[in-house]
């Protein structure tokens, strides 16, 4: 279970998070929606400790996540970055197998490579990409390699930052199914950021909408369409008119 309590974060004078509180149950899939630049990525990075919140507390399974040595803590996490963030000095398979190749439980290279190719297959990439370098891939392919890397070590908690952005609709469907499968079959806890409403419907158990630095609305996916919250309604229907300003 992940719990954020009143998390604040400003960059310089600009407040981004102004008291985010959110609970994500173990083994559930929470989707965070919200306008561009509202701090969705920042929220995930705060949980991972990549960004230090100015105030507020973050708990993972009841223990407060703190600074210092996070190697152990982070070994339970997988993260897909918005920009994929592949290591461009390493070929694709070594990116995917990065965690498998290192640390106390490191696999031998041939085995790690097999596992990487298996994970690549799950994101719709054939074994022929394994030896390419990230710069030789298209944006959508890089994103999927990032996804394969995030799930490679079968982590308990996985964050997906816009997993389907830049993918064609069919591939987006494959990825949505994959994320759903990871939650239902492997019991992972996931937080996904997406702008794609069909993804939201396919992935989410719960939906949280971030707006103006706080969780503006949170609820079950089945309540999303019927809620009277004007912000949510404007967002899910993509209307230009409404309480959310078009210029931000």
């Amino acid at each position: 279970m992940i719990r954020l309590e009143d998390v604040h974060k400003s960059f310089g004078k600009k407040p981004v998070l102004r008291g985010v509180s959110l609970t994500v149950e173990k083994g559930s899939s929470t989707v965070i929606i919200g306008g561009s630049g509202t701090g969705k990525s920042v929220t995930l990075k705060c949980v991972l400790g990549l960004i230090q919140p100015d105030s507020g507390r973050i708990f993972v399974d009841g223990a407060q996540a703190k600074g210092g040595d996070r190697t152990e803590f982070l070994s339970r996490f997988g993260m897909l970055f918005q920009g994929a963030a592949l290591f461009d000095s390493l070929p694709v398979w070594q990116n995917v197998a990065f965690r498998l190749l290192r640390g106390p439980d490191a696999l031998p290279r041939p085995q790690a490579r097999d596992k990487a190719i298996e994970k690549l297959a799950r994101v719709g990439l054939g074994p022929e990409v394994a030896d390419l370098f990230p710069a030789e891939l298209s944006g959508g392919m890089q994103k999927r390699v990032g996804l394969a890397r995030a799930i490679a070590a079968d982590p308990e908690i996985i964050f997906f930052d816009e997993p389907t952005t830049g993918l064609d609709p069919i591939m987006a469907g494959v990825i949505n199914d994959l994320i759903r499968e990871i939650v239902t079959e492997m019991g992972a806890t996931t937080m996904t950021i997406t702008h794609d409403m069909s993804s939201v419907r396919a992935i989410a158990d719960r939906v949280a909408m971030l707006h103006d630095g706080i969780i503006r609305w949170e609820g079950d996916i089945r309540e999303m369409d019927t809620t009277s919250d004007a912000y949510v309604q404007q967002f899910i229907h993509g209307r230009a008119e409404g309480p959310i300003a078009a210029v931000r």
Partner: protein
Amino acid sequence: MGAVESLLAGFGARVIATLAAIGRISIFAVRALLQLITPPFYGREIFNAFLSVGYYSLPVVGLTALFTGGALALQIYSGGARFNAEAVVPQIVAIGMVRELGPVLVGLMIAARVTSSIAAEIATMKVTEQIDALVTLSTKPMAYLVAPRVLAGLVMVPLLVGIGDIIGIMGGYLVGTGRLGFSETAYLSNTVDFLEMRDIVSSLAKGCAFGFIATLMGCYYGMGAGRGAQGVGRATKTSVVAAAVLILAANYVLTEAFFSA
């Protein structure tokens, strides 16, 4: 506020910022050194760093040293002619190359070649979130990125300096024997007899220090890069300038330590 006051305030702010930077760099240096003796050790990364800092710097170092040694021989010959001291060419070339020019020129070439590439690479990793990705994959950037490069600087740059010293002396020898009429055996024996252990030790020690400075500055400014392409550019430029200035300053301090009275 008057013009003088604001000038002073601006100056004071610069001084404080510089002192803060020195403090941060010192802390970073200590952390990097501690990381050298703390597992995990990444063999492949260390090997790659040794290759790119050491092996691939050989051509630059060799050419720089060769031409400098040659030019030095010509200068000493024509300068020495003013007081009938042309004969000291081998000795002065040897001492000049080994004590000063070898380490300093190699250090500066490494700052140009290695510091810049380390800073640009790490800064690019920073702005494309690769460093964040590294952290989330339970890998410490200090251990994976910084320690191998700093180790390569500490080990490979003294070697490069040693090679540079020898090639520099060879440059002087080629000019001395080819153009200035020195006998081949006399030139070499004069060189060998004149050099002391202290000269060589100081040369290699300087190499160690400059290698540390060059790689450390690349890592430090790379890790601290701001956002975007501009952040990468700024990190690269600042790291090279800082490395060059610190190398020259450290050179003075080390020369004092080894040779003052």
